[in-house]
């Protein structure tokens, strides 16, 4: 029965991983509220999301600092080192995802106090959002389970989001001549684009899973390498 070595270090590392992945829960909540704000043109809810982004940023700073401290004091190597590197990337992804939600929410008052102009577009965006939320959950599970296959599947899931984004674009093109409607459509496109970026960040998290497990860093799918 051997005495456990470096137990404090390992516990700390586990705690930091949980804390980082918990950031994805925060992003998921933010995205949920953002979608609701879009659906009901809820300006107050949108402002709440913007204010709440401080929590995501706070999480980022706190865990980032703790990881740097761990690097300085514990000289991690091998899997531990790869994990810390991956977590630093993941934190950045989470922070960016939070910012995308904020970007969307900042636009919501601009879509005017009238009801949305195009039901279908709104439906598309809400579907994109829902799908993206699935991506978030899957990315989180893939990371904590070190499941490379699940991580790779994120690409496929993200393709759905990408396709919906293209649909939105097509719809916007056909929205008609009305200036107000056109302005509204551009705003919605930007929102769709932001959601699509959230999806890409989730795929990036999947790539980090592969790095932790294999030590290799390869893009699953990239703007320059379509198809995965």
């Amino acid at each position, binding site marked *: 029965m*051997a005495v456990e*070595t*470096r137990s404090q*270090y390992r516990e700390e590392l586990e705690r930091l991983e949980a804390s980082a992945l918990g950031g994805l829960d925060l992003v998921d909540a933010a995205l949920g509220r953002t979608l609701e704000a879009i659906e009901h043109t809820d300006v107050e809810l949108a402002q709440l999301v913007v204010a709440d982004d401080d929590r995501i940023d706070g999480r980022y700073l706190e865990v980032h600092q703790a990881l740097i401290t761990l690097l300085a004091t514990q*000289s*991690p*190597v*091998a*899997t*531990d*080192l*790869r994990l810390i590197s991956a977590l630093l990337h993941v934190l950045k992804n989470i922070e960016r995802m939070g910012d995308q939600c904020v970007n969307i929410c900042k636009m919501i008052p601009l879509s005017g106090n009238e009801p949305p102009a195009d039901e279908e577009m709104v439906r598309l965006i809400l579907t994109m959002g829902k799908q993206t939320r699935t991506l978030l959950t899957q990315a989180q599970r893939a990371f904590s389970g070190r499941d490379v296959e699940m991580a790779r599947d994120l690409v496929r899931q993200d393709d759905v989001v990408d396709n919906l984004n293209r649909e939105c674009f097509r719809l916007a093109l056909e929205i008609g001549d009305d200036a107000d409607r056109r302005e509204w459509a551009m705003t919605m496109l930007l929102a769709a684009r932001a959601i699509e970026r959230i999806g890409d960040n989730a795929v990036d998290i999947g790539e980090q899973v592969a790095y932790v497990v*294999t*030590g290799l860093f390869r893009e699953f799918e990239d703007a320059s390498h379509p198809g995965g």
Partner: protein
Amino acid sequence: MHNQNPTEATAMTEPNPEQQSRQEAGAPAPLAAAAEQPPAPRRDRDVGELELRGLRAFYGGNEAVKGIDLPFKANDVTAIIGPSGCGKSTMVRCINRMHEEIAGARAEGEVLLDGLDLYDSRIDIVAVRRAVGMVFQKPNPFPTMSVLDNVTAGLRLTGASRGEMDDRARQALVGAGLWEEVKNRLKSPGVGLSGGQQQRLCIARALAVEPEVLLMDEPCSALDPVATLKIEELIAELKQRVTIVIVTHNMQQAARVADTTVFMLDGELVEVGPTEKLFTTPDDDRTEQYVTGKFG
């Protein structure tokens, strides 16, 4: 310096160490009396290739090293890491045949230096130690000798002239990064230097006989951090002259100085590979466990 005299060089008596190393470097042709011409000496940078084949080491009936096959790249630094009692010091001491000095200890297998098996029965064991030098954990300069005499201790018995010896000593001290600090106190006692300086003195002493391989058995464990770093710098320079094998308990040190790292466990070789690979993506799970501190 000395001309190769065929008949002298092939005699069994204690020959000039330079000729001896050249002999070993030159050919598998043994150091026994032979009628054939010894091959021409070569002293190029590839000299210093070491390889262990089926090396086993015993303390009485206890097998401490259980069959190791391991090549060492010439002019590289190879670190041997592993938990206490894994056999790393024992293995290294087999390379310069110091292991068999211990009562009841013996070794089997082959240790090939440039293709020549150092355990061949015709080999002069004293000459082996000239070709393979060693630096120990605790600095051990000879207390009755001055700095200069310490460095030339290995040379004084070769019949070289005083001037030649002093020259070699100076080169060795420069090579060990100690010349500037001691050039004005060459006659002062060797033990009067600080710990780090004493260890560099021991390195100079080992270098003076111009070995091909330098074995270092935890050379920094008795030194303070600054002295340790100085010696690590030195190792990086020295590898151009000699092949270095360093045993260390300190994994960060292995990571800093070594090109290749070897992980041993219970007398066996578990994994060998480029240092950065062993410390970022080791193949063997046991290596992973050891370097991340899960045991040791």
